[in-house]
């Protein structure tokens, strides 16, 4: 589903590579934690998968798409197969919950009838039934992240990328969000989640890919965050 081969990313402004010869393969339906301290390259890893940026060296595959070589006009095709959520939710503040989710479908040309059918379904899946008319600022942080997840998942992507999705949430709310991501993972969606939250990683016991200074220092199934970090 996702394959990186000796991927190196150098940003122009820094001397140390943000990613240094990273090779990782993630199979269909897997749930992977991408961990490591701040600045270790987790966000860069996800940005490259999304073609927000291109690697300096190395190859990246997402499904059958050669991401680094993808021509500009095919980038939307890649991104339609990938859902993304961030620490800061990135909801549109002047649209309702329902409109926020519908927006993601509108802009990729889905028909109004599809949108009317699918949006309530996904809101129910993330536990926001009955809140479609609310504005984002009328929701708690956890609920806002659910909207973001609904928006990322509404087009049934093959892959869901999450960059510290619980970074702004308290532990209980974080656990709820993790249950939701787990549920999405059970539908067959591959999930890659960057985090440096020990307790979440430890409680889930999933595959862990650990980055440090841009290098993969550990890639272990059913793992914990690790000692002394």
């Amino acid at each position, binding site marked *: 589903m996702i394959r990186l081969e000796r991927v190196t990313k150098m940003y122009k402004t820094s001397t140390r590579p943000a990613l240094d010869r990273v090779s990782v393969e993630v199979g269909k339906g897997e749930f992977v934690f991408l961990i490591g301290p701040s600045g270790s390259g987790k966000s860069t890893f996800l940005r490259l998968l*999304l073609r927000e940026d291109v690697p300096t060296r190395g190859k990246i595959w997402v499904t059958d798409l050669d991401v680094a070589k993808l021509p500009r006009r095919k980038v939307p095709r890649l*991104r*339609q197969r990938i859902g993304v959520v961030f620490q800061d939710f*990135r909801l549109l*503040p002047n649209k309702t919950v329902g409109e926020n989710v519908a927006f993601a479908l509108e*802009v990729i*040309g889905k028909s109004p009838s599809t949108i009317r059918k699918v949006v309530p379904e996904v809101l129910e899946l993330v536990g926001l039934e009955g809140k479609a008319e609310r504005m984002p600022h009328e929701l708690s942080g956890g609920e806002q992240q659910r909207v973001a997840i609904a928006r*990322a998942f509404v087009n049934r992507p093959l892959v869901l990328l999450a960059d510290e999705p619980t970074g702004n949430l308290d532990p209980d709310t974080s656990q709820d969000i993790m249950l939701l991501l787990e549920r999405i993972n059970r539908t067959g969606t591959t999930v890659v989640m960057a985090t440096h939250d020990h307790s979440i990683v430890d409680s889930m016991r999933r595959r862990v890919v650990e980055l440090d200074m841009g290098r993969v220092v550990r890639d272990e199934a059913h793992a914990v965050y690790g000692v002394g970090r």
Partner: protein
Amino acid sequence: MRTDFVVREVATGLRRNVTMTVAMVLTTAISLVMVGTGLLAVKTIDATEAIYSDRLEIRVALTQDVSTADADCTQPICAGLRSTLENSPLVAGVTYENQQEAYQRFQELFAGQSVAELARPQSLPATLRVKLVDRDGSTEAAAAAVKQAMDNQVGVRTVIDQRDVVSKLFDFLGGVRNVTFALALVQAVAALLLISNTVQVSAYTRRTEVGVMRLVGATRWYTQLPFLVEAVITGVVGAVLAGAGLLVGKIAFIDSLLAGIAQNGVIPPVTLADVLTVSAYLVPIGAVIAGITGYVTLRLYVKV
């Protein structure tokens, strides 16, 4: 492509920067008014030249003695001059206006004025009126040749090129056209910069939406079209205002300013149809310029 989506986004965009939108519409309108004025000037000049190129003649005025002696150009001096002219390949035709005819035309021209009463047929010269052949859209060559052939000939008093008289008018109209186009150019640059700036501001105020669109895999049509449509709409509205401006300008200034000479047939009038035609051209011009500017701006400055 969902048109309702684009319409909604465009409406939001235009409403969000009303002041910018208005500034952009007005600047576009002013520059297009100037372009329109320039086009009308060109059209008037062309039409004027067309009128005169048919009418303009070289007049060979004959000396007093020949004029008085010869009523129908049959005597040797006049007949000689005439056949010289008629044999030239650059001459389309020659007519003879004797003193009596000159006198009548003079009376019509200055009817009611005191010079008409003072004039006597004997004081006016008879003239050979020479129509010129048009070579490559110009009678320049023919005029020069005729002048050279007639100057200092026996019986010739002066050679008058009517084209000299109107060339001043053409110079003036040409000047109007050039100044208008120069101003239009400067104004157009201002309009382009403003359109470009508005597109950038518009993209900036909607960066969250555009960011979401990019992430969920919206194609460039979806992310860019609203901005382009916005630019094109302001271009078109600017052009419509410019058309209205031209119309007002015609009725308020041109009509009264040129009324006298246009009625006399000195220059052709600027008609309503002319103004409407030019205005109709301005709309696609405005739309295309705004659209191209918007597109280039998005390509260069806005990551969408």
